[in-house]
């Protein structure tokens, strides 16, 4: 065992290797590690942020849903009310129309009755004149006896 030049060579080799590691390999690997650490930190932050976003979106969607439900209920309510109104209105219109029609019919009937009566009275008048003329044996001039005839007709019409 002798301490000699080997010592120097071994020491130099050893420190040269360490120097090489410092110069070339260490920075490359350390940069990779540090970059990855940054990436992971950023990724975790992003994950946390998106978690928060998701929660917010869920809350918002719940709000929107509730609002929509309320609004739908409101609309259904309104529609019900409106349909009731329409039905009522229709009912009103229908009954007034019916009344009108009934009134019209009544009127018509009255008019027809009147006309029939008038026709009848005229007929009766004519028959009366004819009868009278036959009885009398001569022509009765309707013009000269207009007043009488009219009175007769009116009586018939009234009766």
């Amino acid at each position, binding site marked *: 065992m002798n301490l000699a030049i080997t010592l120097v*060579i071994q*020491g130099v080799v050893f420190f040269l290797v*360490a120097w090489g*590691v410092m110069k070339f390999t260490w920075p*490359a*690997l350390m940069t990779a590690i540090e970059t990855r650490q940054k990436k992971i930190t950023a990724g975790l932050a992003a994950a946390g942020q998106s978690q928060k976003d998701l929660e917010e979106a869920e809350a918002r969607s719940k709000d929107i849903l509730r609002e929509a439900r309320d609004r739908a209920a409101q609309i259904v309510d309104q529609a019900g009310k409106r349909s009731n109104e329409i039905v009522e209105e229709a009912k009103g219109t229908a009954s007034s129309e019916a009344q009108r029609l009934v009134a019209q019919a009544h009127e018509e009937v009255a008019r027809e009755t009147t006309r029939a009566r008038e026709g009848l009275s005229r007929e009766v008048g004519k028959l009366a004149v004819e009868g009278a003329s036959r009885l009398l044996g001569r022509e009765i001039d309707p013009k000269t006896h207009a007043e009488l005839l009219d009175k007769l007709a009116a009586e018939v019409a009234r009766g």
Partner: protein
Amino acid sequence: MHFGMMAEEDVSGGVTGYIKHHLTHLTVDPGHGAFWAFHLDSIVFTLVISFIFILVLSIAARRATSGVPGKLQAAIEILMEFVDGMVKDTYHGSNKFIAPLAITIFCIVFLENFMDILPVDALPAAAKLFGVEHLRTVATADLNTTVGMALGVFLLIQWVGITHKGIGTFAGEWFTAPFHAHSTVLKILLAPINFAFRIIEEVVRPLSLSMRLFGNMYAGELIFLLIACFTLGAALNHVSTYVLGIAQFGAGVVWTVFHYLIITLQAFIFMVLTIVYVGISAEKH
């Protein structure tokens, strides 16, 4: 220039010869005196291991991605983050060399120690086929390697001390710590004591750093050699050969498992102590 034997080697058979043979370095003597005779085996194994280390790390670095890492990158990153965290906890300076140095210490010392796990005779026997007489595979069981690294660490400690505190403060500390005084007389009185303490401290650090690693690996290697001696020169027609063979296998397994712990621990200790020494050196007293 001649390969092989060192002066003190005494070629003889038996257990002593076997162990001595195994503990002899492949020494190359260029012929300019003992200092220039170098241990080729330690140097070659260190270079090969360094090359493997650099290769693996370069592959990882070249393929490094900040996205999903591969298994190799993940493994190296775990080690790097561990070492980097330890350095950041202990050393509060801005020297970019400390963490890469620490990881290099750990990996290279571990790999060099790991050579001890290989069967003691495997590589030396293979080398013999190529006419290489001596081969020691565990570079950290060579005092030169551990002292070389420890001296490097020692120089680094001084450098860190100077750059972090300035040469004035750094030099001043040699005479004013660990004993502080307020009066000038006491300061002058304490200066030599402080200086002596500082010298001891500075000498003990690299000494303990290198001796601890060397001692552990040398002892580990020796125990593997002793286990290998169970059946050294055994004949197949002896009952004792089979009994000892089983014993050798059992002892080998136990010591190998235990040695895994030691080689990892020693590599770790070398790294941690380096970081701690650098950290201490960077702090002002």
